[in-house]
């Protein structure tokens, strides 16, 4: 039983009266954003600085964790299962209770902002699962991505279609009918529609075949070449570090190793513990 009496459903699963499809899990649906403030001094474009925190009132999962990314770079978070990789990214995106440390974007402290407001500030986020609107067409998915924009976004849509030609072909098909790799393309495309200043991907290659994975990585590099900073959590550490400009190896919510992708791949310690020799 949860502590909140309003969330008590006594295990009822009567589908004629309750609909659990697509129900939200994000807590701060009604939380108001706190203030932001300008930060002086030199700092990476996006940085989660010395973050410590956990979900809700739960125990801390992150301890003094720092993640940063600069324009034109691909930063990759890797680590063993349960290391807090996705958690670190969610902390940067504001889906976590960060008790100490700060998140700064483009010289502005955004630690107090809700995820929704971070989207408005220019952060694009692609969750690991449920990252597309399955009942809507590919094109509608992209349109929804551009929901906060009031200007004409047809150019951006053309760019997305240029990047992912298969999506143009299937633009009028419900996104839920696409293959795993194509769904991920829709998900990334949706996030790109806001014209974000930074793109965050949570395990974009989870559950796709190796060939599709390579193709997805190629596309991600292509996006990064446009100058868009990309922060990515990856399970496939080796391949991910190969394309990474910067790599963060997390262990139990702490920064274990940090360096360029090549440095980490060359580091014998890292090789031994995470890359299987």
């Amino acid at each position: 039983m949860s502590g909140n009496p309003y969330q008590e459903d006594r295990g009822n699963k009567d589908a004629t009266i309750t609909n659990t499809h697509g129900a939200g899990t994000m807590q701060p649906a009604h939380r108001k954003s706190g203030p932001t403030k300008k930060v002086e001094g030199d700092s990476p474009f996006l940085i989660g600085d010395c973050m410590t925190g956990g979900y809700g009132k739960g125990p801390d999962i992150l301890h003094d964790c720092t993640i940063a990314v600069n324009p034109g770079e691909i930063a990759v978070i890797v680590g063993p299962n349960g290391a807090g990789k996705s958690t670190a990214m969610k902390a940067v995106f504001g889906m976590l209770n960060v008790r100490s440390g700060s998140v700064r974007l483009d010289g502005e402290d955004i630690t107090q902002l809700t995820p929704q407001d971070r989207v408005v500030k220019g952060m694009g986020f692609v969750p690991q699962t449920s990252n597309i609107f399955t009942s809507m067409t590919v094109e509608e998915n992209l349109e929804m991505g551009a929901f906060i924009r009031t200007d004409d976004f047809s150019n951006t849509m053309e760019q997305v279609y240029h990047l992912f030609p298969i999506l143009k072909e299937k633009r009028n098909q419900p996104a839920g009918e696409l293959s795993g790799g194509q769904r991920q393309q829709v998900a990334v495309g949706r996030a790109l529609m806001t014209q974000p200043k930074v793109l965050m991907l949570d395990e974009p290659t989870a559950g796709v075949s190796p060939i599709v994975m390579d193709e997805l990585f190629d596309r991600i590099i292509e996006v990064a070449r446009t100058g868009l900073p990309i922060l990515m959590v990856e399970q496939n550490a080796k391949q991910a570090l190969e394309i990474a400009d910067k790599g963060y190896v997390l262990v139990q919510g702490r920064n274990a190793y940090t360096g360029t992708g090549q440095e980490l791949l060359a580091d014998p310690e890292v090789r031994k513990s995470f890359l299987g020799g």
Partner: protein
Amino acid sequence: MELLNALVAFTNFVGVPAIAYGSQLAIGALGVTLVYSVLRFSNFAHGDTMAFGTMVTILVTWLFQGAGISFGPLPTALLALPFGIAVTMGLVLFTDRTVYRFYREQKAKPVVFVMVSLGVMFMMNGLVRFIIGPGDQRFADGERFIISARDFKKMTGLDEGLAIKTSQGITVVTAIIVVALLFWFLNKTRTGKSMRAYSDNEDLALLSGINPERVVMYTWLIVATLATIAGVLYGLDKSFKPFTYFQLLLPIFASAIVGGLGSPIGAIAGGFIIAFSEVTITYAWKKVATYVLPETMAPDGLVQLLSTDYKFAVSFAILIIVLLFKPTGIFKGKSV
């Protein structure tokens, strides 16, 4: 000729009433299905929302009739309908602000919303009875028939008459307009798409910058409109009585579930399936059978499969059959 007569009798006693009733159910079920998809619970207060909207429309109709305003051959209620919709919108939004919103902030489970809707149902039911009383109200005026049975017979020379009531004509025309508008709104407008997105994946909708409170508000506005229209059409066709409207909940729920909860097309299909089965199964087929069958085989009884009092049983039996074979409804709803 005999066959033609049979066909006319069938259309007159089964086809026309079932199409009208089906349209009314479909509009009602659309409201239920929208709340189910966006707010994620079955709204037990829907029948009473229909009753409230109809009541306001009736009161305004009386006001117009008192002032001598009429709509020519059409019922005055159509002029009063926009007022009914507006007031119902106000009531529904007020209810959302004072009642439902709190539970959204608490991220309450859908079944808690169902309980809350029971409370709202009681209050609305009480309110309607308190204002207009529990009795039967007829408020249809204007021309009663588009074609009366006698005119039809004169026109065609057939033995059987075909009567189409004005209310039935209005029902079908309104239903077509309402459904077309609703589908256009859901599929073509930005707001409509955002409602579908929110229903499909709430978290991702939030990440896309869709404001849930706006989605919920638009949903309630549409639901109030649909409920009032469905209620007024039903009232024009038959009559208005608070308790009858409360009881409409069962066929409306059945329609929404048969079609597939959460699917607008399903709601419409479900409405017609329920209406046609109710009418055909409780219709006394004697007249049609007499025309079709040779004289020696003419039936003595009424040839009624079930007495009309069992119409609820019919909608429910259809519901169970559909659920047994296709648990997500005909048009694959969200769950079940």
